Each structure stands twice: as structure tokens, then as C-alpha cells.
């Protein structure tokens, strides 16, 4: 547990990092970023609150099982999203330019960027974002528990 100032600031920064990570995830097909980067940012947010509150406290709030479940859910939705294109081929981006959700077309060349495009890509971005968030978060939590155990010893 770090000092009061760090804890309060972490509390303020945590939603900020989270929303920024989700911004990066959601705009993966428009701006630099995407599932991995956004997930890593969010996982760093988890690491931030974990270090500022200490493992003894944080393990009650952020459960490892929940993070693992997030990881499994993200991977499953990723592979299912990839699987929906099996009619033509695995990983076929059938949703792009189809007019459905995320199905708008983009004009060729530089443009300001439209969120409602790119078909399966935003969905996969979101899935991978959740997966990376869970995965890296749980790695940090495991490492923290190891550090804590060495402290106790």
C-alpha cells in the first residue's frame, strides 16, 4: 500500500486510463492502436491500482478468476467471430462493406475516419482487447502474489 496521495491519484487515474484504453480499442481501425495496445493500456491501469493499494487489498477487489474469465471470453468471442466467416473461409471479413453493423464503406484515400466501418475488425479488436486485458492483468496479479509471498517469507 503506497501513500495516501498515490492512492487517491490512482483512484482518479483509473477510470481515465480505462476509458482511454477503450478509446484505443474502439478506434483501432481508424487511429493507431487496436486490441493489443488498448488491452495493454487497460492492464496497466489494473497494475496501477494493484501497486497503489497493495496485493493484500486488491485481491479482494480484482479477482484473478474474473480476469481469467475475461481472457477466455475474449478469446472465445474472437474465435467465434473468425468462425462466422467459415461459409467462405475462416477469418473471412464478411461484414465489411455489407451495410450491416460496422458495415459502411469508406471512400478511397485520406478521410477523417468513420467509426461505423471495417466489418469484423472492431469486433475482433474488442475481443482481443478484453483478452489482452485479462491476460496481462492476471500475469501482473500472479507476479504480485509471488512478490507478496516472498515478503511474507
Amino acid at each position: 500500500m503506497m501513500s495516501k496521495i498515490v492512492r487517491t491519484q490512482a483512484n482518479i487515474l483509473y477510470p481515465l486510463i480505462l476509458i482511454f484504453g477503450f478509446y484505443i480499442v474502439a478506434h483501432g481501425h481508424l487511429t493507431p492502436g487496436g486490441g493489443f495496445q488498448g488491452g495493454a493500456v487497460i492492464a496497466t491501469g489494473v497494475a496501477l491500482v494493484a501497486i497503489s493499494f497493495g496485493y493484500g487489498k486488491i485481491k479482494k477487489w480484482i479477482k484473478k478468476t474474473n480476469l481469467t474469465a475475461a481472457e477466455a471470453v475474449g478469446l472465445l468471442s474472437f474465435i467465434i467471430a473468425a468462425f462466422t466467416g467459415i461459409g467462405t473461409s475462416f477469418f473471412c471479413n464478411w461484414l465489411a462493406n455489407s451495410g450491416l453493423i460496422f458495415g459502411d464503406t469508406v471512400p478511397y484515400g485520406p478521410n477523417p475516419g468513420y467509426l461505423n466501418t471495417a466489418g469484423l475488425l472492431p469486433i475482433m479488436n474488442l475481443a482481443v482487447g478484453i483478452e489482452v486485458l485479462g491476460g496481462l492483468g492476471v500475469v501482473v496479479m500472479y507476479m504480485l502474489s509471488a512478490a507478496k509471498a516472498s515478503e511474507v517469507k
Partner: protein
Amino acid sequence: MLYNLPYITVAVVIAIGLYAMLYKRNLIKIVIGLSLIESGVNLFLVSLGYVQGGIAPIYTNAPKTEMVLPTPQALTLTSIVIGVATTAMLLSFCIVIYRHYGTLDSEKVRRLRG
């Protein structure tokens, strides 16, 4: 005129990493060396795709000029995540080895030999 300088950096960084892996006896130092090699390879991949005067391959609000090659960047993304996965696993191995052996010296962590 930036004559192949990134590639030279890559060579030096990989050599430093290999030096650490060959000569350092601390296991965490070895992992640091591995991490350095991985960073060097990433830098190599990215600089392969660089085109003189190009911009990032993103069409959002981009000026109209040449673009750098996108494939190496995609490969590097994959490689970075693989690198952090490897590093995390190796470090957890180090922790368990330290708990059982009480040391991280590679001259002492060798019960398996012969």
C-alpha cells in the same frame, strides 16, 4: 542520409543481449538479455518497412504522401506480445527456482546434468 544506422543498432543490441546470455551468471540477467534480443529483432522488423519520407499506413487525416510498409508493423505487434508472454513465463520460472534452490546463479542451478 541515415546510412543503415538502425540496422547497425540492431546488430549491436542483439550482440549485447547475446553477450549477456552467454556470460552473465544470474538468471534474471539472462532474461534481460533475451528481452534485449527481442527488442532488437523488433527494431529490425520495423526498420525493414521504413520508406524514406513515408508516413504511417493510416488513412485517417493523412497528408498525401508515400506510406511505409505495413506488414512489418503487423509482424512486430505479434512479436511484442509474444515477447512479453515469454518474459513473464521465464520470470515466473526464476521465482520458483529461487524459492527451491535459494539462488539464481547458473553455476549452482544445475542439478540436472550428466
